[in-house]
């Protein structure tokens, strides 16, 4: 055991003296949290919509008034009036406006005659997010346009009442679980991947291998040292990240304790995975080259940034075996829903089994010679 501690002590002393390493493994995920959180999270506002009114009668003017109300309050879009449909379409194609709303010449007559009146929305579908926001707001405008001045006492139309059982969750909070796991991953990648291979290439391992340390002491030392660094990064993220993302009662000790258990399980799983990948690698370029790829392949299919239900079948396979998935799921339960450990027991079980399996294979592949 003394020898294991010697390896850990050495690694942690080095870690303490490399502020750059600490900075990268903790600050980069926080930057991602803030930038991605605000880049994706907000409501879409201030779209420009061209309005071509070829009708000009009272029912059309009523529509104009509703657009003005949206522009003044929700600010989702601002109407810009065109006399000529061709000019509006031209501006739409050139990206000056985000959509064109056409009120056809017969609109008022059809409204009054009850003969299926239509308005048309021509949208710029290269931007799915803006287009669906526009569709959404216009679709919700029309029922109120259609509403009769006097409502019947009893309606036969079915309505949907939505009940949100948690307080509103902004995107930045949705993103936080993924970012915590990302911090643990980056730390494992640098501490367990890049530094491990660099030491090997520089011949530092040669120094250990001539001492009487055995294979298991070496593996245990390397793994625990890497895991401790990854746990430190994870703990910083669960506290600082929760405060930044505005999680209610961010420093609740009971929840922090539950999260610490999950951080430890996540760190052990990711460092074991890294050790398995790196156990036979000697070239210092390898961990650097696969860093970005591994990040993409593990992080995005995990459901950290978008719900897994939308993935194609092949990606769902990655989702199923990806330790990120279970870690992210666990943190979502604990952070967003403040559940007990029972709700994450499946995640903890998967991460533990993953750790045992990866370490087992890595130990078989590990060679105590050059």
């Amino acid at each position, binding site marked *: 055991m*003394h*020898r294991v*501690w*010697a*390896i850990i*002590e*050495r690694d942690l*002393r*080095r870690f303490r*003296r*490399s502020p750059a390493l600490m900075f990268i493994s903790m600050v980069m995920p926080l930057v991602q949290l803030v930038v991605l959180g605000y880049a994706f999270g907000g409501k879409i506002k201030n779209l420009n919509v061209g309005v071509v009114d070829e009708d000009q009668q009272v029912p059309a003017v009523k529509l104009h008034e509703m657009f003005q109300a949206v522009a003044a309050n929700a600010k989702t879009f601002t109407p810009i009036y065109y006399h000529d449909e061709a000019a509006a379409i031209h501006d739409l194609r050139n990206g000056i406006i985000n959509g064109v709303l056409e009120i056809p010449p017969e609109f008022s007559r059809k409204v009054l005659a009850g003969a299926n009146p239509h308005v048309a929305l021509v949208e710029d579908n290269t931007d799915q997010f803006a287009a669906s926001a526009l569709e959404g707001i216009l679709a919700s405008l029309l029922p109120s346009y259609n509403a009769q001045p006097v409502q019947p006492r009893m309606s036969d139309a079915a309505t949907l009442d939505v009940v949100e059982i948690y307080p509103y969750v902004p995107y930045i909070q949705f993103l936080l679980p993924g970012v915590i796991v990302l911090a643990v991953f980056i730390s494992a990648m640098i501490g367990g991947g890049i530094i491990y291979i660099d030491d*090997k*290439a*520089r*011949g*530092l*391992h*040669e*120094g*250990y*291998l*001539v*001492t*009487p*340390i*055995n294979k298991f002491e070496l593996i245990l030392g390397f793994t625990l040292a890497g895991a401790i660094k990854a746990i430190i990064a994870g703990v910083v993220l669960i506290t600082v990240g929760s405060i930044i993302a505005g999680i209610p009662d961010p420093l609740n000790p009971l929840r922090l304790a539950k999260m610490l258990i999950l951080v430890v399980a996540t760190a052990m799983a990711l460092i074991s995975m890294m050790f398995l*990948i790196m*156990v*036979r*690698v*000697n*070239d210092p*370029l*390898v961990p650097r080259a696969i860093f970005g790829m591994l990040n993409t392949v593990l992080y995005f299919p995990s459901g950290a940034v978008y719900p897994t239900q939308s993935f194609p079948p092949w990606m769902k396979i990655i989702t199923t075996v990806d330790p990120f998935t279970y870690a992210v799921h666990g943190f979502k339960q604990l952070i967003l829903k403040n559940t007990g450990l029972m709700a994450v027991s499946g995640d903890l079980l998967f991460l533990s089994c993953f750790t045992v399996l990866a370490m087992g294979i890595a130990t078989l*592949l590990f060679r105590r*010679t*050059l």
Partner: protein
Amino acid sequence: MFDVEVENLTKRFGDFVAVDGLSFSVGHGEIFGLLGPNGAGKSTLIRMLTTLVPPTSGVARINGFDVVRQPNQVRRSIGVIPQAMTSDMELSAVENLVIFSKLYGIPREQRKKNIPQLLEEVDLTQWADKPIKMFSGGMRRRLEIARGLVHQPKIFFLDEPTTGLDPVSRVSVWEMLERLKRERDLTIIMTTHYMDEADKLCDRIAIVDHGKLAALDSPLKLKASIPGKNILEVSFTGASKDWPNRLRALPDVAEVKGQENVFRISTNNGPRTTVELLEAARSANVTVASLSVQSTTLDDVFVYYTGHQLRDTLQAPSMAESPYVMKRGGM
């Protein structure tokens, strides 16, 4: 009993034979030098003897322990200074020594006593708490020598201990090794390709080439073993065509090389050949433009035994130099 016994030791990497049936033994208290061109198999040999690389066949016993069957007893008996500088740059001199003491399982009280003494022995007491990244190459080498001694080994292995050091640092490393050997009763095995280093330090030298033993003896005997004890470098003006033949006929001359007016003459008796040469030149009306007499050096021995053509050969891949990404069968 010998401290190091090597019998028919062989290491193959695929089709490439890095060490080819080497046999030798090293007695207690010797400084034993391994000399050879780059890629001759010296480092592979050292790595087999220090349990870093398993041999393909043959036997090596260190301090009586077999390197394959009793690796941990071997590791406790030896101190190893690898070729690459392998100290932790971010840690201080003391921290490096403490970590290695712990890896060898040295108890705390003994550590507290040993480490200041070791730092004193390698003249680094003053820099004990400074990080290694601020050390010069010579200081790092001295620290590594101290690191190799934390567990008081009997046998000390050094792979090119002074490569890359300036002349002053080299001399100080030499003096340190000689003193440590005396005071700690060490047996030292070192590789080098500096002839002056081998000549000055080593009691016996093995010249290794293509993984085979080309010669093994003391520096003095090795120098005596090649033809000619002295080398005369002479240039003449007004020499006739048969002048080289006249030179070969001089007493004690072993070999004459050169053409036109410049010659390199190997002789078994430098002073006598010189006198005869000057007389022959006077009687033949040849003017001696320059003349120098040199003793045989280890360089001559080395070139004699290994041949002197420039050799570009592939060598066994080592971790530090490995150009490829993953070993076959990896992952």
